[in-house]
């Protein structure tokens, strides 16, 4: 297949579009793993939950409150969903994960995996598995933009833009500010940081809440593009874990860059040999694990 400039650029844009979702989700995982040492398997389910907060807020909340005309609009959902899911995260951390801190992180993985199955199971029971359409996409973001080489939906341009801002904003806070330095110090030596009078347990709880809030944010962004379905998270999370492994567990910048790159690799595979698009990321994971077991951006242990 001949690849014109136009084809290549279109695939770069589409790849970037999928890549920002990988980036934002793997970033949340990296932040959580970095500070809590927990492989957060419930991440995909909370991403799905974020999308459902947007969907139900738009369709159901009004009638529920006795005001059928009321819709939780898209912009509000972008703030409300991360807060709701973040609060749920805080609850999970305080009541369950906290008790497992002393044990091997296999236990955290099992607990979060179980939670993911429960949340997904409950939603599968009540909602349409093939997905419901989210109709709350704002007018300003509908239609297409002419990029010169292709017509690209305006909404997707927004998704790419805001996701990059959120990703690099998070990186900046953690790597370049005083608050971030507390966080990183808390990872290295919690006892010492405590001695400086910093409330480490609270910091850990809020970090977890923030990490899963990012997942919910991505869920709201995804709602108008993909169908909102109970399985949207489980389909996504496996790929995202591969991204985290390739990038290096716990590396903030690594997870962002790897997410974006792998989105594009996957995009190109869809043009070159589409049936392999589901496996290419795992192939890369195998190669990276063989050559550089700590991941592309990870520190050798």
């Amino acid at each position, binding site marked *: 297949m001949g690849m014109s400039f136009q084809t290549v650029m279109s695939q770069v844009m589409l790849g970037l579009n999928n890549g920002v979702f990988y980036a934002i989700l793997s970033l949340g995982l990296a932040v959580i793993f970095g500070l809590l040492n927990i492989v957060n398997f419930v991440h995909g389910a909370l991403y799905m939950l974020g999308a459902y907060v947007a969907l139900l807020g738009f369709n159901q909340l009004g009638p529920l409150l006795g005001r059928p005309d009321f819709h939780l609009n898209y912009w509000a959902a972008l703030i409300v969903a991360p807060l709701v899911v973040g609060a749920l995260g805080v609850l999970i951390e305080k009541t369950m994960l906290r008790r497992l801190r002393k044990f091997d992180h296999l236990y955290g993985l099992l607990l979060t995996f179980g939670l993911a199955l429960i949340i997904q199971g409950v939603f599968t029971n009540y909602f349409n598995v*093939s997905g*419901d359409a989210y109709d709350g996409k704002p007018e300003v973001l509908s239609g297409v933009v002419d990029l010169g080489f292709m017509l690209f*939906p305006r909404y997707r341009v927004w998704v790419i833009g805001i996701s990059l801002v959120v990703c690099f904003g998070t990186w900046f806070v953690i790597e370049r500010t005083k608050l971030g330095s507390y966080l990183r110090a808390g990872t290295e030596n919690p006892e010492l940081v405590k001695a400086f009078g910093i409330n480490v347990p609270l910091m850990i709880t809020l970090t977890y809440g923030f990490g899963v809030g990012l997942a919910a944010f991505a869920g709201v962004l995804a709602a108008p*593009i993909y*169908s909102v*379905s109970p399985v949207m998270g489980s389909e996504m999370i496996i790929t995202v874990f591969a991204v985290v492994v390739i990038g290096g567990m716990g590396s903030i910048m690594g997870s962002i860059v790897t997410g974006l790159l792998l989105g594009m690799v996957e995009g190109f595979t869809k*043009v070159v040999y*589409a*049936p392999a698009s589901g496996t290419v990321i795992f192939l890369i994971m195998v190669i990276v694990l063989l050559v550089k077991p700590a991941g592309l951006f990870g520190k050798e242990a």
Partner: protein
Amino acid sequence: MKSLYSSAALSASLLLTTAGFAAPPKDTISDGVVKIGVLTDMSGVYSTLGGKGTQVGVEMAVKDFGGKVLGKPIVVIGADHQNKADIASAKAREWFDNEKVDMITGLLNSGCALAVQKLGGDKKRITMNTGAASTELTNGAWTPYSIHYVYDTYALGKVTGQAVVQTGGKSWFFITADYAFGQSLEGNTSLFVKKLGGKVVGSVRHPLSSADFSSYLLQAQASGAQIIGLANAGGDTINAIKQAKEFGIGQKGQKLVGLLIFDTDIKSLGLNVAQGMQFTSGFYWDRDEATRAFAKRFFAIHKAMPTMDQAGAYSATMNYLKAIKAAGTDDPDAVMAKLKSMDISDFFAVHGKIRVDGRMVHDMYLMEVKKPSDSKGEWDLLKIVKTVSGDEAFMPLSESTCPAVKK
């Protein structure tokens, strides 16, 4: 005259019933129970169009039949094959060997269907497929105990393909689900497109249950084909249509054609997005009084209108039970002989018949999605554009490669 006939029929059936009750010969029903297994996608990408709803259809049929046949109870069990052929086949083996299951129905997903049907052939158990689409089921993979009840890729490709080519859609590009079903659907449709002077300019194959179709859609757009044919189903078709709309594909010049679409897909997409699309179906709930009456009862239980798979599962079960009663035994050979000789007439099929290759031949319908302004209710989604007789829609026996067809 008519009343004479009906009273004659009534007394004949009364006679049969009393005869059945009077002297139920021993061992007419193996293991003292007729067990029907619903094995299908209960949780994945196809579960809305089949899933629990298929089991609801089967259970309704059993209840309407009276819960007993030849004095022995009828039991329905269900399981999720997760769209994995190995799980489907392991479950079916367990059902046949340990659970005394006499007949398996549902069987969405051609990969799973082919595996279970082969096992049914080996074990001499009946499979009545209402969900899967591959024509292989009535050709190379035929067994003396297999029935393909609702639709197949040949009928879908022929009815939709012809309708589209005849209205000017001459060049096609396919977006195809990469497994037995998608390949079969693409192959069958291509055949009719070419036969009528159209051409296929390309195709792209995607893994089952993909979330993002934008790349495939852009490839289809770049091909310059007039028609983008979607040879996939369920959640995949929904995502493809939705994202095509987002990219403005299918609005000027190019047209999107879904080759296998279910009512529940249209419900999920919304009429705004789907309006005007044409596709082929084996059943529509709002066709006549009888379909509406069934649909209303089904809705009361399942909270959604029946798809062709779900309605077909009712009809298949009902006719299976009728055949057992008529044969006076649940012996698979005797039941199959009855099924293949009886007239299948109910709300689902009008004078359907099951051919020697296991194909249930009945009318197919070319459907069109209504405009939002024409829809009078939540489930008022489609109108029937054309009724195509079964003999015209399905593969004629002269083209069949089924070993049972004598040439």
